[in-house]
């Protein structure tokens, strides 16, 4: 990694993020505010996936379900105890993280391959959806319930910012924290261990790496993050509802965001989220052709840009050899 460039990029990214609400948030166009919030949320989801999948090669397909676990726990517990969801937020995240860690533990112990773990978690995703719809008496079934308990009226008053702006800043703070954790992980012993696990789990074990513990650790961190952001995701729509957390609405999108942005890159998730959410909204204008257009786009992007936007740009800047970088971007060869 190029450290000087990193020093330059990070402040730039955050200045840009902090400026977003001032530039674009307007009370009469809340839909624009929401788009930006969605970008941040999906960027954080993708960061979490980056940690668990990018680093330790555990592909989970129940991110929607985990986010739902976080959101429902937070909201329902707050309601039940009659306290603010800000207090139950961490409980929800811990619950989600524990669940995720447990699944990862079983998978690591039983030595599931990537695909088997993917399918097991996919099955869990289906079960979570079914249960949320089925336990109508507790969860209010498929129509969900309104949720906007994660506001900070005091901060709004103090700063004169609208609720969406405040929410955006809260999420930027979470994003920064996750980015910090990720950067630290990569540069510490964990980074070494992750690289070893990813390339040859068996050899990693023989070298002394506690593969199971690390996989569970990565699983916990990732699902904790997803569970933490879940309630904010509900907050943005103003609703907590099963369909918000379905496989198609969360997992598919997060995967696309991560792969497109760039697996194992620090800013890939953010860039990917921005691009994908933009495309998603843009395609809305296609009416009944939306799905078709989305499918074509996905296929093309994966076939020709699967090394990710950020890594491609990086190599473009790094070696300045245009033809080589271009062929990298067009991604026939395997990524380094």
């Amino acid at each position: 990694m190029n450290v000087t460039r990193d020093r330059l990029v990070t402040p730039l990214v955050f200045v840009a993020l902090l400026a977003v609400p001032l530039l674009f948030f307007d009370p009469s166009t809340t839909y624009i505010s929401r788009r930006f919030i969605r970008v941040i949320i999906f960027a954080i989801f993708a960061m979490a996936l980056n940690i668990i999948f990018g680093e330790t090669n555990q592909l989970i397909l129940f991110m929607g379900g985990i986010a739902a676990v976080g959101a429902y726990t937070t909201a329902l517990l707050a309601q039940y105890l009659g306290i603010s969801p800000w207090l139950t937020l961490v409980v929800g995240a811990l619950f989600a993280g524990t669940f995720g860690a447990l699944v990862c533990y079983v998978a690591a112990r039983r030595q599931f391959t990537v695909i088997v773990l993917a399918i097991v978690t996919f099955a869990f995703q289906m079960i979570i959806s079914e249960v949320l719809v089925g336990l109508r008496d507790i969860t209010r079934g498929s129509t969900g319930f309104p949720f906007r308990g994660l506001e900070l009226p005091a901060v709004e008053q103090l700063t004169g910012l609208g609720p969406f702006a405040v929410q955006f800043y809260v999420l930027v703070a979470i994003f920064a924290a996750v980015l910090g954790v990720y950067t630290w992980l990569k540069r510490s012993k964990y980074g070494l261990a992750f690289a070893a696990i990813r390339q040859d789990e068996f050899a990693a074990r023989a070298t002394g790496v506690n593969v199971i513990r690390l996989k569970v650790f990565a699983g916990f961190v990732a699902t904790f993050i997803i569970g933490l952001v879940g309630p904010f995701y509900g907050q943005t729509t103003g609703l907590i509802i099963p369909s918000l957390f379905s496989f198609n609405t969360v997992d598919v999108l997060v995967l696309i965001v991560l792969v497109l942005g760039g697996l194992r890159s620090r800013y890939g998730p953010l860039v990917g989220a921005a691009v994908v959410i933009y495309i998603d909204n843009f395609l809305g204008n296609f009416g009944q052709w939306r799905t078709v257009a989305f499918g074509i786009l996905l296929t093309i992007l994966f076939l020709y840009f699967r090394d990710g936007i950020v890594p491609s740009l990086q190599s473009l800047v790094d070696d300045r050899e245009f033809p080589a970088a271009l062929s990298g971007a067009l991604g026939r060869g395997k990524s380094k």
Partner: protein
Amino acid sequence: MLARGAELLVDGLARGMILSLLGLGITLVFGLGGILNLVLGVFAVVAVIVCSFILGVVPELLVAGVGGVAAVALFALVVDRSVLSLVYEEEGEDRELLGIFVTLGLSLLFEGLLFVFFADSFFLESDVPSIDLGGASITGSSIAVIVSASVLFGLIYYFFNYTYLGIATRTVIQDETGSILCGIRPRRVQSIVFVLSAAIAGAGGILYALDAEVAPASAFELTTFAIMVSIVGGVDSIRGTVAAGIVLGIIITVAGALFGSYLSTVTLFAAAIAVLIYKPEQIS
């Protein structure tokens, strides 16, 4: 009571055999070529649609069914020769992941097209009369399903165990270079298997439509079930997939009758998870 149980079992068996066929569609391509084919459900739906159009002209289900399957095979061939060729250039895990992503994109594309152009619901009728077996009434469609699926299983089993080409498909998954050294062309075998899997899924879809409504929205559901069945069956085992489909079919039918609610779906996925956790070492 006994008759009711028998009815349930037969219904479950028929349903299970359909699941087995769909599962085989996944098993063949993933087990033999490393591509998790998320377009499978689309193949099933397209077969039903074509079949139903042919029925409008030639009112003979067998003819129309073969027509539907043939059309899907052709469709699959085009997909294989064009997009999948790019995927097959990769190897190992790269191919697996690219396979998932590309077929995901393709499935959205095709589903979208179906929604725009063929959004109707489709049913097919078997004309097989229902029969009475010791008080248990067995529906005509169940009979049609069980008989035709059995024949298909037999053919598939024979193909993969007793023909050169069938065994060659297994060499390609086990060692692509090895198969080249034997004079087998992996890409050709992969194409054949892909087309075959689409045809099997098409047949599964047609049998499914004898009983239930098939619409573009069914594609995702059918793919999901197919993946579950295939994974529970061991991903690369044809026999395992057939068994898994039948067992899961009976489980959801019985669970549906007993609990009569959303729990039957939960049961299906829970059963799948249980099997996976219990014996994942069989699953590569």
